[in-house]
């Protein structure tokens, strides 16, 4: 087992460079001059040529990639064309905010999925199967932005229980201790709900399948025959065996922690990686866009790797395919 993992990890740097190259060349080889979009009537005529030299846009693409990669490794990701701030600083502000959101959503998703999945497996039959399947279909069809807009309509504008967007109230700086904490929590509620609820139904079906699979094994029948209580059979004999596939599933959904929040962050004005990327795309701010996409892609690839390693460690059957 260990040599498979070592081999995987040894490949990681190569993988990261490949992903970075894929993103960089996608951006650079597109037709058109990226700088032309920035020119307005009152732009300093010297601005564009200076920027072009500064960015090395007059050099061959491969040389540009080398420069860009060397800079990125050293923590210099260039500077935003719009705000003129270093990209690294923008990312350093955005990434923790994204993680705060996604880690909570992840916890919510899997807690609900495990509860619903086990319940559905225990009552497995036509009605609960149908219910779960229908819920999956409906939730899958509902885009995050529609769900988010509806929740804003009901809880923020209608009932006025929760703030509609942002990360802090406008007067948050003046709050102290408990009040400040409560303010942050209130702002987290809706985005976490939208982000978390989205995959609950799908995840619950996987949990249900894993539990059902574990409960049809012979040792479970034997435990029942020995007269153990249902509760004991479930906890000691079924769930323990269902843990392997479940841990694999958790691990496989790790990449979502850095990726999937473009829409939710934009909708709720949450200052994270998603909104940074969307803002850069809207403003054609290429250095920020390039860095954000490359960083997210790299982190996703790395967490995929972690997931594979975890999966291989938990379930020997996975090792053959790794």
């Amino acid at each position, binding site marked *: 087992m260990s040599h498979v993992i070592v081999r995987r990890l040894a490949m990681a740097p190569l*993988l990261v460079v*490949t*992903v970075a190259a*894929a*993103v960089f060349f*996608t*951006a650079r080889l*597109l*037709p*058109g001059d*990226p700088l032309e979009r920035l020119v307005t009537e009152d732009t300093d005529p010297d601005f564009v040529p200076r920027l072009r030299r500064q960015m090395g846009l007059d050099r061959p693409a491969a040389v540009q990639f080398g420069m860009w990669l060397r800079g990125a490794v050293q923590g210099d990701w260039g500077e935003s064309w719009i705000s003129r701030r270093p990209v690294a600083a923008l990312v350093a502000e955005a990434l923790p905010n994204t993680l705060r959101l996604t880690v909570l959503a992840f916890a919510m998703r899997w807690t609900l999925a495990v509860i619903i999945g086990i319940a559905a497996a225990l009552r*497995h*039959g*036509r009605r609960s*199967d149908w219910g*779960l*399947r229908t819920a*999956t*279909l*409906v939730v*899958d*069809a*509902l*885009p*995050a*932005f*529609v769900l988010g*807009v*509806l929740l*804003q*309509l009901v809880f923020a504008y209608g009932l006025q229980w929760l703030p509609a967007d942002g990360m802090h109230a406008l007067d948050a700086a003046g709050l102290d201790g408990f009040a400040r904490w409560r303010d942050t929590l209130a702002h987290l509620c809706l985005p976490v709900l939208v982000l978390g609820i989205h995959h609950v139904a*799908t995840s619950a*079906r*996987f949990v*249900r*399948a894993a539990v*059902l*699979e574990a409960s049809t094994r012979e040792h479970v029948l034997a435990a029942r025959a020995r007269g153990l209580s249902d509760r004991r059979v479930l906890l000691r004999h079924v769930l323990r065996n269902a843990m392997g596939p479940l841990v694999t599933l958790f691990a496989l959904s790790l*990449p979502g922690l850095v*990726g*999937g929040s*473009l*829409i939710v962050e*934009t909708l709720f004005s949450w200052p994270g990686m998603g909104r940074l*990327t*969307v803002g*850069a*795309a*809207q403003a*054609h701010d*290429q250095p920020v*866009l*390039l860095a*954000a*996409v490359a960083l*997210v*892609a790299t982190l*996703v*690839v790395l967490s*995929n790797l972690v997931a594979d390693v975890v999966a291989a460690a938990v379930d020997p059957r996975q090792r053959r395919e790794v």
Partner: protein
Amino acid sequence: MTLGPAGVRRHARWTLRTGAALLAVWSVVALLAPVLAPYDPTALGTLGADSYRAPGRTHPLGTDEFGRDVWSRVIWGARVSLLIGAGVALLASTLGAAVGLVAGARGGKVDGILMRAVDLMLAIPRAYLVLLVVGILRPSLPLLVIVLSATGWMQTARVVRAAVREIAAGPYVEAAHALGLPPWRILWRHILPNAAAPLVVSATAMVGQTILVENALAFLGMGVPVPTPSWGAMVEEGRKVFPGVWWVSVAPGVAIACTVLLCNLTGDALRDLLDPRAGESGGGA
């Protein structure tokens, strides 16, 4: 306790018919939008007087900020979404099938390289990649179809490759080889038709997925350019006049959800019928 195979098939057939019929009706409505829409979707009303009229007799779903009829915009928006959904499903499936066919049939080094490329592209989050491209180029309908196809073919390639490998090992393919048929003919006449079922299933599933992504992009202001009506953009426009004027956002939101739901229902049913081994959709004992 669960439905038996026959019951699943009967249920799937019923769902497929209903889903496909409703989808067909919706497509016809979209196609006939120029005839069916009571108003021009881009015609501006008198600002102020016609802005934000509540749903009523003259405007079944009310009007938006510029006095444009929301119902007309919803059915014109269906044209855009269904066109992009179908176009991308067609293009991406063709591309994916080609890659999967070559990888599965050639095997060896070619297979290795192609499948590593698939892994790599699957690892990069699609939404970010699409945003990168439309953030640098100007979004337009053809560009969206191309970008969404270029980032959406990988799953199909995997499915087709798996099917091809399985089929290629079958005795009738061996027989065809033994008869001395040229490889391209075996591929085209004997392998591809047998891989059609998983291909059709994955293409159908792609339509709903694509519509979701397209509207998410439109919501972010990176979809088909204004003033072409697009549901995602309409939801975004309606957001600023919440909660008093709810219809501008809610109508297109419901349209997206219903359309995608129909696509997914049809796709699921098709999978149950054509690809029973993928089985019970969602796994389970």
